[in-house]
């Protein structure tokens, strides 16, 4: 195990996004504040409570999740993809960095960014709704699981993509719809049939609901079941990414 190599990659990844704080930190903060103002206030006028929680509070876990997931994914996918495009991936492939070191470096960097933006979003939300953290360990678990999973998915997207438009395929056609259908702004359980059942196949629902349980202390879903499903998803993604990096799929000629 090349521990120093892994740490160097991780440190480089973190420094990379810290170099452009406007893009990596500020812009997600502005967008979440806008979500708050637009969705929160416009809907809060009509929807006072969801599942017994004031509406503004109800959407906080989902907004935190959205900042976290988007940024974790964006960081690992864009970083690895740019490395591919500018040719510096050669440095990584030639160096004594195996698939585990590479994954640890990219996932670590992406999780740091995801958690940072998620945390900042939460801090901003606190200004609007006050601070609530009912089950800290559960909240932490779902924050880590979500950021981890999206970091790995980012690696997969970057390995697979050959063109810039392909790197946007997953966030636009998969992540965005699943996020909006993931119960951020409404309760999935209160959807009319069959949408409430179909939604159960959306892994984002478990991330949002898990976080909701951790932060607000209640959720329509069993957090244990959610965590189980998410661990399964994370393991599957990890296995695929490991196999892809080990075989050199689309990275080696």
């Amino acid at each position, binding site marked *: 195990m*090349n*521990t*120093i*190599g892994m*740490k*160097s*990659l991780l*440190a*480089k990844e973190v*420094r*990379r996004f810290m*170099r452009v704080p406007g893009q990596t930190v500020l812009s997600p903060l502005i967008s979440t504040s806008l979500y708050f103002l637009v969705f929160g206030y416009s809907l809060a006028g009509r929807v006072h409570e969801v599942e017994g929680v004031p509406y503004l509070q109800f959407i906080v876990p989902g907004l935190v999740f959205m900042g976290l997931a988007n940024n974790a994914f964006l960081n690992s996918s864009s970083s690895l993809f740019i*490395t591919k495009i*500018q*040719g*510096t991936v*050669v*440095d*990584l*492939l*030639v*160096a*004594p*960095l*195996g698939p585990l070191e590479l994954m640890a470096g990219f996932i670590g960097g992406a999780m740091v960014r995801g958690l940072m933006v998620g945390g900042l979003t939460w801090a901003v939300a606190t200004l609007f709704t006050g601070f609530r953290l009912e089950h800290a360990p559960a909240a932490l678990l779902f924050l880590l699981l979500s950021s981890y999973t999206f970091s790995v998915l980012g690696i997969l997207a970057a390995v697979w993509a050959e063109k810039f438009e392909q790197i946007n395929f997953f966030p636009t056609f998969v992540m965005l719809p699943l996020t909006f259908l993931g119960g951020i702004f409404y309760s999935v359980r209160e959807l009319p049939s069959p949408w409430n059942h179909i939604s159960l196949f959306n892994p984002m629902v478990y991330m949002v609901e898990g976080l909701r349980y951790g932060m607000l202390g209640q959720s329509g879903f069993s957090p244990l079941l959610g965590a189980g499903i998410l661990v399964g998803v994370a393991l599957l993604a990890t296995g695929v990414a490991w196999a892809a990096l080990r075989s*050199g799929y689309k990275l*080696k*000629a």
Partner: protein
Amino acid sequence: MSSTPALELRGLTKNYGGKLTALTDVNLTIRPGEIFALLGPNGAGKTTLIGSVCGLVKKTSGKILVFGHDLDEDPVRPRYEVGLVPQEINFDPFFSVAESLYIQQGYYGQKRDEARVMEVLTALNLRNKADSLTRALSGGMKRRLLIAKALVHKPRLVFLDEPTAGVDVELRRDLWNYVRKLAAEGTTIVLTTHYLEEAEELADRVGVINEGKLLLVEEKKALLRRLGEKRLIVTFTAPLSTPLPESVLKAGATLSEDGRTVTYPEREGRAPGGDILRALYTEGLPVGDVETRHSRLEDILIDILRGKPAAAAGAA
């Protein structure tokens, strides 16, 4: 010095997409501490060969041993010992020259070592650019940074894939001296180049590859001796009206069509050029200018690639 080869290729074959065979059954042993020049035209397979060793190309079949370690058994560990200067320039615009080297040290499991980074930058004449962002470097400087990146972790086996493309003449000389110094310290060097002068200056041994096949591997000196010629060229002050003397013709000299120049390829086992010259004087021919020319690696390479029988006979 250990006798384990720095690199051993056994039957190395690479097929791109199952169609184009870029390397066919390449067998090659690189000795520790030598400078080996791999020569061949565009598309011959040089970069593919290097990429296969360095983890950039997935070989189709064959074995690769780096300092005796089979890459199939452990593809990662042997790479601590290897450095690569890739043919294509790449750089990370986010980082400065020095930072790029610190990152590189880290990748190779080494602690940040400022003294070493400055040493390499000085050797490559980049010291005053240490804090510049890499995107602000000129093309030749970027290539020198690539070389610095490949060397900063003190690899024992270094691949230089056209290291001096786009580097100015003076720096090319500096670089040659640096490469010689590395080799003298025991570093094994495999280089490709299209500047044959470079191979001639640096290499201990030369390999010629074409269309994926290694045609020849030979000591540079032996190759120059075996296939190279010294030619004696005599120019007359006026065209000859008579044929050359019998003895001169027999020795293998030829007269040009305009009757003005005699060319005599001096090879091992033939009469020395002095004998020919003496014969010309004795006959009272109007000798004007006398010149000897040594053929260079360049001429030899062309012969080999054209498949001249004498050249091919030396195939290893």
